[in-house]
């Protein structure tokens, strides 16, 4: 999406992207190291190039972004609706339980301090390990 970083053009010589290569006379290696580190941190020369779109492509871009917005909004609304439904069911079930058995109701509503997801729970990856799922696992004691 962005152009390559700008290079320094000087008349005659075509210098490369010289941030780490240029040696300044009179600087000892330690000071040079600091200078290099500072130049890496600085935002100088890191501004990406502005896009120049033709009118048609601008409209197409806007269309794509809006469609994406519509899709994302629909997805979010569906998720919210589902969560709401879940919440309503939990509430209804608890209301029933309250009348059926006070003991069970209290157990269901105990404050779950210290509740943890199992450490074996992984954030899914596109390419999971070859060995596959480990079915006979027992939770590890910490």
């Amino acid at each position, binding site marked *: 999406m962005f152009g390559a970083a700008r290079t320094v053009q000087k008349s005659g010589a075509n210098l490369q992207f010289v941030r780490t290569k240029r040696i300044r006379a009179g600087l000892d290696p330690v000071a040079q190291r600091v200078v290099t580190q500072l130049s890496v941190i600085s935002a100088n020369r890191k501004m990406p190039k502005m896009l120049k779109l033709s*009118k048609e492509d601008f409209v197409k*871009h*806007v269309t*794509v972004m*809006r469609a994406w917005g519509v899709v994302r909004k629909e997805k979010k609304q569906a998720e919210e609706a589902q969560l709401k439904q879940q919440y309503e069911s939990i509430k209804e079930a608890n209301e029933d339980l309250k009348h059926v058995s006070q003991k069970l109701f209290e157990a269901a509503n105990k404050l779950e301090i210290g509740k943890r997801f199992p450490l074996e729970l992984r954030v899914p990856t596109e390419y999971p390990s070859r060995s596959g799922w480990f079915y006979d696992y027992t939770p590890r004691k910490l």
Partner: protein
Amino acid sequence: MSVSKGVWSKFVKRSPTLALRNKALRTALLSPDLPSGPVSLKSKASKRKYQSIEGLDQIYPLAYEVLEKRSEDIYSKIESLDKNSPTYAEQKEELEIAAEKFNPEVVYMAEYMKNSLDRTQPVFRHYLKKTWEGYSKMLLMQRLETLAVIPDTLPTLEPKVEVKLKFPHNNQDRWIEPGTLLSSNVTKMPPSLEVIEFKESTGDLYTVLMVDPDTPDLAQDSYSTTLLWGVKDVKLSNTDSMIDAKKLMQNEDCEFVEYLPPVCEKNTGKHRIAFWVFRQDGPLENAPKGLRREFFKIRQFVEDNKLTPVGAHVIRTLWDRNTENVRKMYGLPEGRVFTRERVPYLKN
């Protein structure tokens, strides 16, 4: 190959003005890539150099499909609206805007062809309103406030329409920015006004008043308001929004006070000339032909006729070397020349 397979390429129920008239542009917007290069770029060199965004040709048809599907749903919702409901017209307009708002052709026209939009279409009115609110409306209100047109003529304004103004001078077709200082040569002929409505309007009646609140009133040691031009019962609609000489010639009853150019007297400073546009409920009754211009009570007039101010404009003029010529043209006596009065020195 067109990306459109649904409502946006059907013109049985939709107006044909929602489609781009330029064929090359239309094909460019309805195909995944740019089949004949970037049409909107002018020079050959920039056309050759231009590179489209990578991957846009793959994602664009999908995006178009999503939005077209959504539009189709909205159109079917319009069909199922209750026609007897009191808010039917409002709901319909809202949904019609929502259905066409994201149509790439409409977006293109609203962005790049602002002067030739079909104002009978709610979606174009919506886009025009947004443009107006983004600049002209704020500019007008800023000028009205800093020049104290509000509250010197009318107490306030809640702008509903855009008012554009130009004078038939020098054959220059240019809209005048509110607050501009104009010479008497420019203002010698009656102006043309464009009143752009952002709601659906088929035959509303409008009144226009042009007043100069800076006429010196020596008796009161103050200023008075002069009515320079009064126009009433002008029928405007979304398609025909101009108030110009041609329209006033057709119906001579419209002009109840004939145009008198602002001819400022020497040394009276810059005069504000305010244009007020009112929407009428019915024909105007308390506006007789040949109403007295001097000491015009604009607030009284508005109250008597039950007018609602919907738009305004303001210009400024000054005495200049041409003013006497304009006076002669309209058969007016020579203007007074004001000089500073020498106040006797008061001891203590």
